[in-house]
């Protein structure tokens, strides 16, 4: 993973190798196309889905949901984390219920969210928000807690107010762990999204997979899997690029923590 994008030439080879094994396995064992279609069949299905615009539609629906949920949970998590840092009493009141909520897998909340928010976009975005909130919240809280008190003293002797210290010293120094939280959240968000779309949905990549399964179109299921994986990698890569451009002092680790 580490060299995947940094050193370029290795990962296409790995991809070709995996596809080759897949193709060879399918043709040698003669396994039914309903169980595992060959790469060629999957490529055909993908071309078909691209040509009639179905894939683009599902991707758009999923990505829009993810962006909304991710943005919403980022805003919420940052606000709550910084409010906790500012008001100790608030933290003591709100933290226990939050900790309770954190133990519950977002997918277990689907039935309740369907009851409360219906089966529309609000419910999907709600699931993603739940899934993204805690990684960002914990990353931010941890980053704030680890801020070097010596730098805060620099703020004190510079005559900064508590709010200014939070904004100009604590926030930037917490940024590296906020970023780790954001990357974990992005990965979690994808999972929750597809999970939410498998239930009570009429569009999105999860729905596409679920629908294909009902029609015994395993080739489309595989297309869905490939698209989800690729989009996940691509968003993480874009995300890292954006962070490297915006905050050059934040060293972004490659790989691993997206799937933590």
């Amino acid at each position, binding site marked *: 993973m580490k060299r995947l994008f940094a050193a370029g030439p290795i990962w296409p080879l790995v991809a070709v190798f995996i596809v080759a094994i897949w193709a060879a396995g399918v043709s040698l064992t003669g396994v039914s196309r309903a169980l595992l279609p060959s790469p060629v069949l999957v490529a055909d299905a993908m071309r078909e889905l691209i040509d009639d615009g179905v894939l683009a539609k599902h991707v758009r629906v999923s990505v829009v949901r993810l962006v909304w949920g991710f943005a919403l949970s980022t805003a919420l998590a940052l606000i709550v984390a910084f409010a906790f840092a500012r008001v100790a009493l608030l933290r003591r009141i709100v933290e226990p219920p939050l900790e309770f909520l954190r133990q519950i897998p977002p997918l277990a909340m689907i039935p309740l969210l369907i009851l409360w928010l219906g089966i529309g976009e609000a419910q999907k975005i709600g699931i993603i928000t739940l899934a993204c909130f805690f990684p960002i919240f914990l990353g931010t809280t941890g980053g704030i807690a680890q801020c070097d008190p*010596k730098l805060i003293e620099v703020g*004190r*002797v510079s005559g900064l107010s508590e709010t200014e210290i939070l904004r*100009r010293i604590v926030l930037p*120094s917490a*940024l590296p762990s906020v970023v780790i939280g954001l990357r974990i959240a992005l990965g979690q968000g994808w999972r929750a999204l597809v999970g939410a779309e498998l239930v009570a949905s009429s569009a999105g990549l999860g729905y596409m997979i679920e629908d294909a399964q009902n029609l015994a179109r395993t080739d489309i299921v595989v297309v869905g899997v490939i698209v989800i994986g690729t989009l996940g990698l691509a968003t993480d890569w874009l995300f890292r690029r954006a962070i490297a451009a915006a905050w050059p002092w*934040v060293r972004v680790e490659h790989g691993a923590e997206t799937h933590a």
Partner: protein
Amino acid sequence: MLECRGVSKTYRLKDRAVAALREFDLALPPGSFTVLVGPSGCGKTTALRLLAGLETPTGGTIARSAGDTRVGYVFQEPRLMPWLSVARNVGFALEGRMAKPEIAKRVADILDVIGLHDFAQARPDQLSGGMASRAGLARALVTKPELLLLDEPFAALDAMTRRRLQSELVTLWQCFRPTIVFVTHDIEEAVLLGDEIFLMENGLIAERFANPILRPRDPTDPEIVRLRRAIIAGFEAGEARKTRTPKESTQ
């Protein structure tokens, strides 16, 4: 004028109280250069932190003359924000307080004075130890402080860089005339820099030395050597007292 009267600071550790500073009296006329010298744990840093308002005294009063006294503080380590350029670190205390072009001008001026002009856009981790110390000094000077507090700012530097920064500090003081309180454990440094030197021990001022020797001061000058000997003698007398009354004095 800055005046401390009977200032004390006691830290509470679990079951006992530790007096870091006791009966601390100090009067600083504007533009004076005072050095607090003593071994580690003698309360000199505590005194400086009290003067800066980083700690509140347990007893006594610290009085500053009327008006908003601008304070500059130079820490033992440079303490630069790793996410800001040298220029923005230096202008840190000014940001949001005055117009950007004015900040830029002030920062550029001070970087010229301190010899970091070419490193304005560098990141702190690209600086050598001496340059980072200079940046920390520039950050304290940029507000044109009336009171400049320095806590062993050059202790971690090599002897040659330290010598250069010491004489630069004296030059800056002669130009801007802030009131300086300089904390060090290095007696030679104390004698080279200060006009008034307070030897500290166990949270008390043990002895006061006036240092009227003209600048530039040469460490091998007989008068300087004599003063150093006097301070060392005072320190050794204190050590002897301490061994006679073990530990009671810190309670």
